């Protein structure tokens, strides 16, 4: 259905590494979706008013069911003496856990200020874990902007959960990455139909899911930004199944193929299970692709989804990539994607937003994928844009969402075509 892999992919293409102003979120932002996904967890950011303000602004709207996240805002007195800060933190946690008895996992999340003053959250987590075990498990990770970019916050969170997982010898598959429940259920259903039954998910929806890990565990990533989690899982003896990511018909098939091969699923059975959803996905993508075909696309760095999405848009939707900017290229993770991405686009890692804007304006792409801070200004300059954050918040993985994924890119173009707002000549 799609073109054969290019003779020369982008794996060895030189990358333009940029170090200037980075117009990206920090890792705290991941809390917005992680707290919905892990239903008995609370995320306590130890940070400043800026962190609290980011969390309520990044989602665009407030999630008003009393959210399972909050910020312990550092004040002048906390900065003066550090021993004090530990006690203060424990006091806030005590208060929080007594008010929210439904909480089974508490994440102490480090921020820029807590990292700079070297507040030891792992020690705090240990002490609090000892106090609240076994009812509440307290873990810590850093979502600070000085260490993490946007989706790296999820990576840090999942990686923090791995060392605490119990040991098992079971032969099992773990899907790694926070997906919307509807998508996760579809993936589990597909794997079950392929005959792969012993499947677990990281992060699990609840603390008592029974998730365990060991030398007979294999795992597949569903998100390309989980390099740290990959390393943590390997340290526990689990083995990674490298694959392209399940975006679009081609990506989903390639991802499932890699998993099926690992579990010895025979080709005829694989084809029988995937034929119908593959065809549906291809049809749905084709409809949206009518608006995308032969247009150019330019990616500003955002979520690390950029390389897989560029592969999807160029190979399944007929677009031409001009620049694929991504915060970080983890070759062990996106290598199979780079193999599929035809040479041509400029690959950039990191960012110098002003220079990148110059390049973007210079090439006048048909569609620019960028963050919310840049989208309206570029629209006002006459460029069509797609907000990148929606690609992280919306169900876009696997066959049944392939059409929706293409639709996210085609909608801004259809909207521009639909509007008749210019004054008559």
């Amino acid at each position: 259905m799609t073109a054969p892999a290019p003779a020369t992919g982008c794996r060895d293409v030189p990358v333009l590494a940029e170090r200037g102003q980075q117009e990206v979120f920090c890792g705290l932002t991941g809390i917005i979706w992680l707290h919905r996904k892990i239903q008995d967890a609370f995320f306590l950011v130890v940070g400043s008013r800026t962190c609290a303000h980011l969390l309520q602004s990044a989602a665009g709207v407030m999630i008003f069911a009393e959210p399972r996240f909050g910020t312990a805002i550092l004040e002048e007195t906390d900065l003066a003496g550090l021993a004090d800060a530990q006690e203060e933190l424990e006091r806030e946690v005590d208060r929080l856990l007594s008010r929210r008895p439904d909480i089974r996992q508490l994440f102490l999340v480090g921020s820029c200020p807590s990292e700079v003053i070297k507040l030891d959250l792992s020690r705090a987590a240990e002490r609090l874990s000892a106090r609240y075990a076994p009812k509440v498990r307290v873990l810590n990770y850093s979502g600070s902007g000085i260490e993490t970019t946007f989706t790296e916050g999820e990576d840090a969170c999942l990686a923090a959960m791995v060392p605490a997982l119990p040991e098992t010898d079971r032969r099992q598959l773990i899907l790694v990455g926070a997906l919307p429940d509807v998508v996760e259920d579809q993936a589990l259903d597909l794997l079950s139909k392929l005959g792969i039954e012993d499947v677990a998910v990281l992060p699990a929806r609840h603390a008592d899911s029974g998730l365990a890990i060991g030398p007979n565990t294999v795992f597949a990533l569903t998100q390309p930004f989980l390099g740290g989690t990959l390393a943590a899982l390997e340290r526990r003896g689990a083995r990674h199944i490298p694959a392209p990511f399940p975006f679009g018909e081609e990506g989903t098939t390639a991802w499932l193929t890699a998993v099926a091969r690992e579990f010895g699923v025979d080709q005829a059975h694989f084809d029988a299970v995937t034929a119908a959803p593959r065809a549906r996905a291809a049809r749905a993508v084709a409809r949206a692709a009518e608006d995308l075909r032969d247009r150019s696309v330019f990616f500003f760095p955002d979520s690390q989804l950029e390389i897989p999405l560029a592969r999807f848009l160029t190979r399944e939707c007929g677009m031409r990539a001009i620049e694929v900017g991504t915060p970080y290229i983890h070759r062990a993770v996106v290598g199979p994607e780079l193999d599929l991405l035809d040479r041509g686009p400029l690959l950039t890692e990191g960012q110098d937003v002003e220079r990148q804007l110059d390049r973007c304006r210079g090439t006048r792409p048909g569609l620019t994928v960028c963050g919310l801070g840049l989208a309206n200004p570029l629209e006002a300059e006459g460029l069509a844009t797609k907000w990148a954050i929606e690609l992280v918040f919306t169900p876009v993985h696997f066959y049944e969402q392939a059409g929706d994924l293409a639709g996210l890119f085609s909608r801004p173009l259809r909207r521009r075509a639909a509007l008749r707002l210019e004054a008559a000549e």
Partner: protein
Amino acid sequence: MKLSVWTYEGPPHVGALRVATAMKGLHYVLHAPQGDTYADLLFTMIERRNHRPPVTYTTFQARDLGADTAQLFKTACLAAYDRFQPQAMIVGASCTAELIQDDPGGMAETMGLPVPVIPLDLPSYQRKENFGADETLFQLVRALARPMDRSADVTCNLIGPTALGFRHRDDIIELTALLGDMGIGVNVCAPYGATPQDLTRLGAAHFNVLMYPETGEAACRWMTRELGQPYTRTVPIGVGATRDFLGEVAALTGRSVALDESRLRLPWYSASVDSTYLTGKRVFIFGDGTHVASAARIARDEMGFEVAGLGCYNREQARMIRALAREHGVEALITEDYLEVEARIAELAPEMILGTQMERHIGKRLGIPCAVISAPVHVQDFPARYSPQMGIEGANVIFDTWVHPLVMGLEEHLLTMFREDFEFHDDAGASHHGAAATPRTPDPDAAEAPDSGGEVIWLDEAERELRKVPFFVRGKARRNTETYASERGLTRIGLDTLYDAKAHYAR
């Protein structure tokens, strides 16, 4: 350390950003880690601005901390000057950069940039957004404004409107017209729409109009002291305040008051019989001090509401709000913790909330209608239509906005008349609101569990009767009856108690 879930104000550098974004020809270099750039989207998304805020963030990372973040700042500063060629620059640190003590102000001074560079010292761990805006405007004015001859015609400066302000865009237009009717021109409006060069001309105005004390008071005080310009104390939100404001302007300028009231509709709308139902509605008011004070006056004097409680989130206005609360015979709530606000609202059970977007959510949870009167803002607070809060049109807008969430005049009476009707009942809600009507459940006893309010017990007959009271006054009826009962040492509320209480509280 203080646990916070939602905040009313951002950090002080966001206040500085609001000033910089409101202006033209100014550039802000902010020493800040990667991630602090989220602030851009406040302006491009919530306010739908079509330009990026004029800010360069140094976006340092962990690897830079071991190396040289100061050099990073200098490079960013020079690059920003070269690229944007601003008339002036402001430089400062966000919360994290404050901790690494690179001293952006000191560094910028030594760089020999050919334009004024104004350092900002905004203590991130003590102060908040409004302070940041107020202080930034003050520092800009102090650095750029100089005494000069007054303009030949009587002019004033409009001081305080910023980007991301609650209806600032439209208040400027309304005020400019209002003053124009008295023959007074606007010399400079700042920071909204001003350039640094404009700020050098501030001294030509005869007086200043302090539109928003939250963001403009420090600058106005300085201009009084250094430029000899008096400033207005009345914020012209509401009919009475608008008249008082013009009186103040007349006193400052020697002109006579000229107010064209031909478009003013609030007084007649409020006096017309349809508005009878507004009488004595108990409202809870919360927001920034300035908007709360304005709203309290309008609520009592111009809408005929009863102020059941009020408060503000900015401590800078605490004294004024406490005095105002005493005047209304209520206790002021000064807090930035929305859970406290929610608890107070639940306790007071007002019939309506005048608040921020935060209180709108609280109202949704508690089933209490809410109209928004103050920042923090939401994309809804930037309507496409002209929608000021100040002046004549502001009063009209406020009447409509406050009445909209309520079940309206005649409809309220009809609800009372048909209160047992299966379609036209309490839970169906107001007819002009979108949500689909809920048919009444066949078993009325299942609809609402009796709630024994503390030690007082509601007997079944009274509880059933209470349920026949329309929902928007049911809370008040329950409270009044319970208060009445407990004042008389009654432990059980029967039908008689209910109606005795009703007669007792009848107005």
